[in-house]
């Protein structure tokens, strides 16, 4: 009996020999150290802030900012609050990121496919693009476009003109501004109708194909609906859209939409730099689909385009999309280099000017980091969801 009880409780050895108890003690020590460090920093910060006469808290967000911002998507002037400043900066960050993402995706996919081309020259050129732009710091590229390339553009008086309505000079890019008139709601309604129609159509086509095997040209029909319906509504409503075309007046352009050169330089640099990474992702994604898949598809009698669309691209996308999202995230984070050329993004107007004016370093840095952190956490949450959905179901 005594022997058995000994066997049942071998862990009755000394306290330190039990890994579980040791782990608990260790964790308590680690947690204690981290908390102590946090308390120490907290104490020092409070003390330092008190000495400098800075009051803590977020009340400053309601104070009047008193400085203007070069470029804003929403109404803004000196009389708005710091809270509004934050919003302007955030929107500017999102704007440059969105433009950068679209451009980078287009360039990246073209270069990535060109890299895989059987044509030697094309594939070498694509490789050159990738190797050059990936291995030069992004900040250097931003400065290059802004300080070295922008001055090569002409003065406003000799602007480059495209189509009589788009002007490019060293002060920026001037585009016609759409002005909607009352009937424009019908065009939007037609667009919405087209989208609903496409969803219904593709469902019906899939069901019909599953039932009968007949293929319906969904893509072309959808495209026709997407373009045709709004166009039809536009015509019927009597062209309810007008363009405010920029005109040269005195020393500068009036009217239209102005894209400031800082935005152009930053978006171009971000797009070109990130496109080099995206190209590599696209290349490795397509190469990751084994050649056997192509051969099997051909053996089943699929045509070349059908093989690409139904076999290769879906499998390549499984590899590409997670990496692509992380590049989008990188691009968004990299847009924080804006202060180097004075584009008023979140970091420039909020963590820069607002911080200097108010001295609320802790709050402002915390908010700024919080914005980027929540962006990246939500994107990684999306990625996890996507990976789970797309993961190979293995037997």
């Amino acid at each position, binding site marked *: 009996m005594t022997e058995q009880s000994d066997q049942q409780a071998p862990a009755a050895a000394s306290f330190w020999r039990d890994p579980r108890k040791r782990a608990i003690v260790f964790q308590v020590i680690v947690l204690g150290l981290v908390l102590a460090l946090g308390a120490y920093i907290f104490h020092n910060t409070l003390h330092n802030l008190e000495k400098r006469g800075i009051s803590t808290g977020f009340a400053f967000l309601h104070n009047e900012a008193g400085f203007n911002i070069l470029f804003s998507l929403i109404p803004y002037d000196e009389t708005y609050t710091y809270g509004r400043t934050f919003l302007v900066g955030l929107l500017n960050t999102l704007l440059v990121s969105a433009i950068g993402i679209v451009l980078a995706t287009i360039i990246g996919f073209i270069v990535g496919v060109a890299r895989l081309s059987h044509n030697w020259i094309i594939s070498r050129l694509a490789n050159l693009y990738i190797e050059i732009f990936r291995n030069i710091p*992004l900040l250097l590229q931003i400065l290059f476009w802004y*300080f070295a390339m922008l001055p090569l553009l002409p003065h406003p008086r000799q602007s480059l003109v495209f189509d009589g309505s788009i002007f490019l000079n060293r002060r920026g890019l001037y585009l016609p501004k759409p002005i909607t008139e009352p009937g424009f709601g019908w065009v939007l309604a037609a667009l919405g109708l087209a989208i609903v129609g496409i969803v219904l159509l593709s469902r019906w086509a899939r069901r019909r194909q599953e039932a009968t095997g007949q293929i319906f040209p969904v893509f072309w029909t959808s495209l026709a609906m997407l373009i045709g319906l709004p166009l039809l509504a536009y015509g019927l409503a009597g062209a309810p859209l007008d363009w405010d075309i920029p005109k040269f007046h005195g020393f500068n352009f009036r009217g239209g939409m102005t894209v400031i050169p800082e935005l152009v330089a930053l978006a171009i640099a971000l797009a070109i730099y990130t496109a080099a990474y995206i190209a590599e992702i696209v290349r490795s994604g397509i190469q990751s689909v084994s050649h056997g898949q192509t051969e099997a598809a051909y053996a089943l009698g699929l045509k070349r385009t059908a093989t690409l669309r139904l076999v290769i691209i879906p499998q390549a996308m499984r590899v590409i999309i997670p990496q692509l999202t992380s590049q989008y995230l990188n691009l968004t984070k990299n847009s924080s280099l804006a202060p180097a050329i004075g584009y008023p993004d979140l970091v420039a107007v909020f963590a820069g000017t607002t911080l200097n004016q108010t001295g609320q370093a802790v709050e402002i840095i915390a908010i700024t980091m919080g914005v980027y952190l929540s962006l990246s956490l939500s994107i990684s949450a999306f990625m996890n969801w996507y990976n789970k959905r797309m993961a190979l179901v293995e037997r």
Partner: protein
Amino acid sequence: MSESSVQQEYAPGTHPDWDPPVTEVGVIGWLRENLFSNWWNSLLTLLGIYLAYLIFVPLIDWAVVHADWSGDTRDACTSGGACWVFVKVRLGQFLYGFYPADQVWRVNLTGALFALLILWLTLPRIPYKRVAGVLGLVVFPVVAYFLLHGGSFGLSEVETTKWGGLTLTLVLAVVGIVAAFPLGILLALGRRSEMPIVRALSVAYIELWRGVPLITVLFMSSVMLPLFLPEGVNFDKLLRALIGIILFQASYIAEVVRGGLQAIPKGQYEAADALGLNYGKKMILIILPQALKLVIPGIVNTFNELFKDTTLVLIIGLLDLLAIIKAALEDPNWLGYSIEGYVFAGAVFWIFCFGMSRYSQALERKLHTGHKR
């Protein structure tokens, strides 16, 4: 019928081979296969040649043919091409910042030692890698500090405010990666740990730093760090930037190392346990040597990214290579040579980064030895 009977006259292996058609081998065959296999391919080739012509002819013309190389002032730049005189005149500053001219040998010596160590570590033919590793990670940083900063052993002190140019870029990148390495390994082990609190803390740390851009970290370390410390304690600007870079970089290294830890088969962990090794011995003797070997390419890539990211210190006012070139471009005597300045900076960064990425690719191929799962 007659053809097959002709073929049968030869015993296997004795057929007098004909040369393949000239259009299928050699230069012509290669051209046909790679550039002109069909009309679409031929069109692409012509397009590519035209594109290359558009890019390279003006570029070479500007950078080499019509460039000015000799002289000391901007008056020497007359031929309309690149004015490399600007770079030549300022080269000392670009490399050493405002380091006193008579002390520059100290920077050169440090650089030479560093280059020797790198050669020792990277060239496969030179033995005793472990010695080189210990020298590089432990001895070299101390020697380099005393050489660069001085203040003892009869060397005059050179304040960090005078450091700049390529020297500063390399100091930031190398210190950043070397100092972040141990912290990164600890975090990776913490993330793989079975203790929930340790794991949660590691995950929180890693995700927090990976989620924010480096520039906000640099802002934080330059603006908030003085607030975090007790009164009177103050670091110089370089050290504050370095602390930010190290904290940031550790999280990236942690993720790379975690990849290596996950690639080690479970049997290795179990075998170490079966031998009765405790956690420290298991990791130091069995797991980490294998895992770290696997992640060397990843570490080199991380270093590459960090090397490029060091340029961000420009925004908080340190004079690294890019910042010092940007400052030189604002000199009224040399206005208007931005392209030369940035192209030079780009070329320097490109050489380092391209070299590193090639090295990591070669290493990846070498380490890809079958047994990897």
